């Protein structure tokens, strides 16, 4: 997985991670890199769009809360975060991991933080999908005895 982990993928994993899981896995690494803020964590909104008929022209559905921030490590790498919700600590950790993934720490962070987060998400999704599957209707036709 590490080989194919690009920035779009890891930023997605970080955004989708439950805050408490990211916090636990990040804390376990025991690293606290020095950084300066390019943009302090800021809470705002993004307009969510849908499409008429599911596939047609876009329309505005409503907004979603988003927290963003940008920081720069002392070694120069810049990390960004755009994450759903209003958790500034989570956004900060996501931006730190994004920045650190551009350093020689990329390998260990992918293995110890990103891969477990991605696996957890998959497991959560699978558990939900399997409950849905259990509610799938199996139709059967009653024998009517007409012959």
């Amino acid at each position, binding site marked *: 997985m590490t080989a194919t982990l690009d*920035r*779009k993928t890891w*930023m*997605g994993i970080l*955004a*989708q991670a439950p805050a408490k899981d990211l916090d636990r896995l990040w804390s376990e690494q025991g690293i606290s890199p020095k950084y300066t803020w390019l943009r302090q964590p*800021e*809470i*705002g*909104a*993004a*307009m*969510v*769009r*849908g*499409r*008429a*008929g*599911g*596939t*047609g*022209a*876009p*329309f*505005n*559905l*409503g*907004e*979603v*809360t*988003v927290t*963003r921030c*940008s920081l720069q490590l002392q070694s120069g790498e810049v990390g*960004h975060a*755009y*994450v*759903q*919700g*209003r958790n500034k600590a989570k956004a900060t950790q996501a931006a730190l991991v994004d920045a650190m993934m551009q350093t020689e720490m990329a390998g260990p962070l992918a293995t110890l933080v990103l891969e477990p987060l991605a696996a957890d998400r998959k497991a959560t*999704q*699978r*558990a*939900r*999908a*399997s*409950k*849905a*599957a*259990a*509610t*799938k*209707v199996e*139709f059967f036709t009653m024998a009517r005895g007409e012959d």
Partner: protein
Amino acid sequence: MYVAVKGGERAIDNAHAWLAEERRGDTSVDELSVAQIREQLKLAVNRVMAEGSLYDPDLAALAIKQARGDLIEAIFLIRAYRTTLPRFGATEPVDTGAMACDRRISATFKDAPGGQVLGPTFDYTHRLLDFKLAAEGEVPEAPHAAPREEATPHITEFLNQEGLIQTEPVSDEVPSDLTREPLELPASRALRLQNLTRGDEGFILGMAYSTQRGYARNHAFVGELRIGTCTLEMEVPELGFAIEIGEIELTECETVNQFAGSKTEPPQFTRGYGLVFGQTERKAISMALVDRALRWKELGEDDMGAPAQDEEFVLYHSDNIQATGFLEHIKLPHYVDFQAELELVRRLRREVMGDVQQEAAE
């Protein structure tokens, strides 16, 4: 006429203090936490997010607690909070075809690929009060089965293959936003859909029901109803590409409606569309019916004079915050207005009574 009046500050402060106490209720009963509301009153949370037009379950739960369960008051709180947020941008349109479905049913095709998946539904319950819920207890875990790995296709696609249903014109035009510009008529379909998705559930339901009872009858089938989560992607200016920023739960309803054809179109089915935040299926079905009724002009149908066909009537009365704001303001002091009315009625009475007395004297 408005005249500044002072006074009442102590009464207002005391009223609000009492409100806080009443909100808490009997202190020998445990206080309700925001997390409890978020997890256990989820459908109320969904309604507040949909009509508050802001997806944030924690905020919606807080608003419900603060509003003492008055959902329109809670929606008002969310709308007010929403206006304080800077907007970072817009997401890519959600791909509902890739939805991770908790529920997916069709009233038109029994054997649709992906099947009829009921999900956590009230349908087929007996609507008898369950007194077991009054006592605390463990809930048994829901059964599992082998999950579907691939995405569930939209059912209208199958009708589309035969050309039996009207296709949705694909575009990437930036839709106008009624939270940024005042609503002007005639409204584009994009504006109508935005208005309906944040409109009052009761109002949209009533309008939809009126079309079923014969006012602008267009006989809708629920081609598909799906509930589940969709990934949100947004283009980030600092990066120059789109990234996932989170995921939201959505309810989507596609109706398939009769259509006899027009001068330019052969007979085919037409569509109504509903898409709403959260698990909100009554609202999504209602939205699809009203969307379809409002499309009469572009489909070359007759104006039956039905309320649900009247874009101005529907779009200007669907918003419960606008409605309640105007409605509830009449309870606030109108002393001077009323004083003028009082004077007028007294004068008219004097004139009429004076005439009567004069007639009696003659």
